[in-house]
């Protein structure tokens, strides 16, 4: 049931920013937008440039404390972009998971505003027929919506106007792949370009499907489940290449990223994240900022002999792209094996951010966020490409809400860390030394061969895969994340392949405050939290923020929520069938109205443990996360369902000027 402003009954109340992190080292910092960062794939660049430029004026024009800001900014919104709208639905589409190459997940659509969002009603829904955790972003292009399910990885095409199923493609994903996946059998979605839909299967195939007919165009096998590899990430497509990577850092996999030709699926290049420089595509153009990242074959020498061959560094998260310099940015997973005592050294290039030439794959710089990772702090989270004015100088940065608990602001041209401050409670490190780029470890919270209690954040980090959004209107980053800590100690006998051993026992629990999830607005310029909402469970969904100053996210206890982008006030919520761990998107329908879509279907690492779906031999996962989630089954059961919402009343203008915007 839709429940506008039902805030009293909900545990999720906005709270004031924390004192103590209000000041940052940048005294006069402003967010400034570079339109090129917001280039829509396959869309008209110029149009969006203008849109974003004018949108950037928003914050200066706003009236402080204006609760109904959406409406009062409505006219400004209309004035800024109306004449520049593309003739088609480009601006109204959502063709890649992050919507734009800068990974902002910001939509310029403003029919749905903070004022009228309580009128949001269910327009149509669709059952995927799959029960496991649904993490994908529905992709909207060319009059259709494309939805990838968890294993067995069905791809559905749905008619945008009617919700009718146009076709279903079944890649025939191997059953055995399920046993290899570490953390439920999720898929993070598809990408669309030029009439083709691209996605990955759990059994390591990248597939291109004809968007109109649902016919397979090509399908290439890139990894081997028998070696522990799977694929779960959403591909990024840029120009003539599709970028994909593998999963399985826990399984002794050697991580890689590869670029495929969009028309043939042929491998253009592949870069590994362990091993000799030649394999990592490190050559003369590689100029890492920090001395600890410089030297020959660090992917070999920072490991015990041959251990790099099973050293992890997979690519299961997000890739951003800067068209101005033709560079992709992304990060790598935890090192293998998990037990850090077995792999002394920095274990490069696990948990590292890479900048690579998009055409050749050559590495330009790298920065390792967790050298010799002891806590499973993968480095795969999204990198949001922004331009920040720092002390009068515009820096082209990548902002990374890290699993480590630090919000990194990195110069994306050089790899220099400009700032790294905690965005929640962190005790594994006292900070990041900006001179060396390395964490200042808290010795009491190290793992390895010893017990340690109350390590914060826990293994899933302050934020796991769930991607943030950035609004150029507010200048804030919207961050769905966790508030979990963990105890680490010796455990009971376990058994794999006939070999007994003693598993570590990791127990996660709620962090300070007792809530397990947080949805917060973060000011990357001032380096402080603006507001935050506490949630019962980890906020394991993605988020989207719009020009209507509405931010959407979902909770594992089955709420799909709209909050005010400036204040965090809950504006609307809807009770869906199963907990939400998917990524919301918003788009213009063929009728010219703005829609919001989300997949529900609880699962993922956070959900599957408590629902008894996890590989039980892994005490870390089965006991570790499940320990923090024992009450989840009292709030939700499984079930994959797509929900699509629109404002009440067909053809009714959503709000003044915005409602007049129509698409032919």
């Amino acid at each position, binding site marked *: 049931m839709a429940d506008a402003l039902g805030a009293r009954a909900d545990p999720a109340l906005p709270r004031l920013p924390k004192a103590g992190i209000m000041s940052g080292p940048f005294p006069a910092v402003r967010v400034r937008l570079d339109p090129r960062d917001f280039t829509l794939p396959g869309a008209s660049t110029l149009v969006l440039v203008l849109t974003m430029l004018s949108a950037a004026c928003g914050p200066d024009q706003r009236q402080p404390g204006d609760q109904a800001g959406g409406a009062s900014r409505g006219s400004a919104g209309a004035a800024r972009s109306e004449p520049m709208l593309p003739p088609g639905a480009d601006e109204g589409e959502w063709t890649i998971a992050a919507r734009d190459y800068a990974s902002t997940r910001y939509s310029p659509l403003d029919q749905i505003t903070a004022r009228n969002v309580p009128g949001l009603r269910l327009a149509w829904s669709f059952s995927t027929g799959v029960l496991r955790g649904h993490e994908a972003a529905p992709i909207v292009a060319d009059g259709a919506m494309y939805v990838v399910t968890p294993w067995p990885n069905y791809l559905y095409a749905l008619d945008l106007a009617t919700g009718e199923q146009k076709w279903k493609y079944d890649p025939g994903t191997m059953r055995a792949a399920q046993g290899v996946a570490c953390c439920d059998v999720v898929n993070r979605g598809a990408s669309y370009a030029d009439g083709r839909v691209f996605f990955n299967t759990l059994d390591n195939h990248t597939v291109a499907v004809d968007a109109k007919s649902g016919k397979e165009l090509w399908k290439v096998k890139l990894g081997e489940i028998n070696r*522990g590899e799977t694929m779960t990430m959403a591909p990024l497509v840029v120009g003539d290449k599709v970028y994909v990577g593998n999963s399985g850092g826990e399984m002794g996999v050697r991580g890689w990223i590869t670029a495929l030709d969009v028309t043939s699926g042929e491998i253009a290049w592949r870069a590994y994240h362990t091993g000799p420089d030649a394999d990592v595509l490190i050559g003369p153009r590689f100029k890492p900022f920090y001395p600890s990242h410089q030297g020959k074959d660090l992917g070999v020498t920072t490991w015990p*002999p041959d251990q790099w061959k099973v050293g992890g560094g997979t690519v299961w998260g997000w890739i951003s792209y800067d068209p101005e310099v033709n560079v992709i940015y992304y990060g790598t997973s935890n090192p293998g094996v998990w037990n850090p005592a077995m792999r002394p050294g920095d274990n490069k290039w696990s948990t590292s951010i890479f900048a690579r030439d998009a055409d050749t794959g050559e590495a330009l710089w790298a920065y390792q966020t967790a050298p010799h990772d002891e806590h499973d702090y993968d480095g795969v989270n999204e990198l949001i490409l922004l331009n920040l004015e720092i002390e009068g100088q515009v820096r082209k940065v990548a902002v990374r809400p890290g699993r480590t608990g630090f919000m990194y602001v990195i110069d994306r041209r050089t790899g220099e860390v400009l700032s790294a401050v905690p965005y929640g409670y962190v005790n594994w490190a006292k900070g990041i030394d900006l001179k060396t780029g390395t964490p200042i470890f808290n010795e009491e919270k190290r793992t390895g061969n010893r017990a340690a209690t109350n390590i914060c954040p826990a293994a899933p980090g302050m934020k796991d895969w769930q991607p943030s959004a950035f609004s150029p209107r507010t200048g804030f980053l919207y961050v769905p994340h966790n508030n979990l800590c963990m105890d680490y100690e010796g455990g009971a*006998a376990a058994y794999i392949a006939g070999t007994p051993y003693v598993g570590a026992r990791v127990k996660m629990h709620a962090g300070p405050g007792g809530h397990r999830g947080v949805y917060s607005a973060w000011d990357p310029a001032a380096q402080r939290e603006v507001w935050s909402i506490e949630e019962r469970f980890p906020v394991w969904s993605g988020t989207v923020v719009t020009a209507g100053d509405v931010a959407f996210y979902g909770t594992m206890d089955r709420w799909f929520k709209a909050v005010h982008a400036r204040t965090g006030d809950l504006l609307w919520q809807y009770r869906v069938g199963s907990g939400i761990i998917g990524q919301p998107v918003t788009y213009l329908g063929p009728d010219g109205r703005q829609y919001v879509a989300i997949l529900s279907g609880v699962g993922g690492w956070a959900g599957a443990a408590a629902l008894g779906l996890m590989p039980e031999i892994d005490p870390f*996962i089965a006991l570790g996360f499940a320990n923090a989630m024992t009450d989840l089954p009292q709030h939700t059961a499984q079930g994959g369902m797509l929900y699509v919402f629109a404002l009440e009343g067909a053809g009714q203008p959503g709000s003044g000027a915005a409602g007049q915007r129509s698409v032919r």
Partner: protein
Amino acid sequence: MRHRMAVLIVIAAAGSTALAYGALPRRPGAPAPHLLRVCSDPNNLPFSNRAEQGFENRLADLLATELGMEVRYTWWAQRRGFVRNTLAAGQCDLIAGVPAGYELVATTAPYYRSTYVFVTRRDLTPPIESIDDPRLHRLRIGVHLIGDDYAAPPPATALARRGIVRNVKGYSIYGDYREPNPPARLVDAVAKGEVDVALAWGPLAGYFGGREEVPLRVTPMRERGDGPGVPFVFAIAMGVRSGDTALGRRIDAALDRRRGEVRRILERYGVPLVTEIREAT
């Protein structure tokens, strides 16, 4: 510190005839047998394989005969998801080998006890028997990597505690499942000279150590463990679903009645057996 436990270790020669055993013939005219539904790995000798050549296959046959049942297998790789997809899913009722007290199942009384061992070439003398042998600081050592959590095989943890890591090479316990018996690559590595010594679980080493082209020596670790939480010796039992006490009791009783044959099967497969003798205090 005085050890209160003495350990008698029996190593049986690896039985070269093990592979010749087939399924036991059934008595003609017997009543329609109940099914002994066994959850088993199709590719993991010496424990089991689809051709039913492992010692757990022999034990299943033995139990079935004793209980007047017929063996029916559910094949599943014994790795992540094994219990969930087999025993817990009701596909089968018995797992022939799990550590005693394994939390995911109800375990029978242990029917054997084995230990981690050193595997070396025969020409490495004197044999390595102790985790504190100084040669372990310079020899190339192979261990299994478990991979998916903080865990490592206990001897690997013991080596790491001693700072022995730079000369340690990990072999994935999962291996490449397309190859036969993937965990055996660790023993192959000694024969091939990739490493000088492997620290392997006894049954695996006892079986494959006798089958390499190069003569290998399998030496049980002298220590029983490396302090609390790091045992080298494990007792192995059979597992049934929690709550399935009826089957558990029947298996327990059958294992006890046929313990002589159980032991002979284990010895034929070269399983290094550890017998616990409790000293009078």
